[in-house]
């Protein structure tokens, strides 16, 4: 059993970590940050939850299985790269539009931001996949290895 205090720490820290990641993602184009660091921050939250509770709990923080996150991240970044072709542009043109919304004044909607989301998603997937593979406790087997032992077959990677 993990430490109750650490579990409390996890409970308290994970939501701010996620918010901070969101901030880094959105601020990244204008301030230090960006998709990579944002993804790593989410990953840090995942690691914290894995340490405080279990890897299985940690993976519940993610919208999808780690490898699916990998695929989605790369796919999204790739599609952003190709999207401008439809408008007669070139690959990775990364266009942006400035719109004026009520309350928010001028907001720049950039393709680069969507690209960064893909980056972030992929980075989260990377750390989650690694955690899933290695597991969270000392010398015992990882969740994936445990699945193998349970199902009597080689486990698939989530």
């Amino acid at each position, binding site marked *: *059993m993990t*430490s*109750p*205090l650490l*579990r*409390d*720490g*996890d*409970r*308290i820290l*994970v*939501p*701010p970590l*996620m*918010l*901070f990641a*969101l*901030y880094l993602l959105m*601020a990244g184009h204008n301030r230090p940050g960006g998709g990579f660091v944002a993804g790593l921050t989410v990953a840090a939250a995942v690691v914290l939850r894995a340490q405080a*509770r279990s890897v299985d*709990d940690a993976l*519940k*923080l993610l*919208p999808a299985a780690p490898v699916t996150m990998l695929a989605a991240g790369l796919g999204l970044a790739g599609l952003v790269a190709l999207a401008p072709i439809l408008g007669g542009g070139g690959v990775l043109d990364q266009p942006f539009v400035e719109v004026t919304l009520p*309350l*928010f*004044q001028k907001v720049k909607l950039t393709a680069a931001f969507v690209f960064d989301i893909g980056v972030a998603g992929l980075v989260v997937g990377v750390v989650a996949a690694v955690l899933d593979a290695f597991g969270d406790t000392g010398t015992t087997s990882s969740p994936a290895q445990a699945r193998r032992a349970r199902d009597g077959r080689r486990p698939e990677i989530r």
Partner: protein
Amino acid sequence: MMRRGALVILLAGMWVALWGDLALGTVVAGLLAGLLVVATVPVPASDRQLTIRPVAALAFVATFAGMLIASTWSVVRLVLSSRAGDAHGVLIAYEIAPEAYAVRTLIAHSVSLTPGTLTVDVQPDGRTLQVHVMDADAVPAARRSISALESRAARAFAPTLPPSDRPSDTEVA
């Protein structure tokens, strides 16, 4: 529900702090961001609920700050003194009073930052702290100091009513 609302507001506050911009748009965005996080991030349930009593909370913060400074001073003295090499502490068990159970985490943290004591662990029952006391001769004093923190924290944040008919206070942790 209320608890989630409080979390959204706290997160929105953090959002505004991060952007360093008190514009309406930022606040709204912060609320949205907070909602998003609360809606999507699973937070495990807890058997402990908190409330806030502002005056008592301030008193707790003041006590804590004073103790932090005092504890720092004591460590500085110890480190720079010739006794440093003999500083062998002891581990003690400290059972949290039932009414202070809800503020267990706060107590555990505070203990670590106050003079001569350091929370090492919580026993599996969740109610007994294992505390390292720096000065083996000062165990009773340490207990008193922990006890003082405990009661101040409980007065500031713990619901005094029995859990069954507790009113919906502002819930944080």
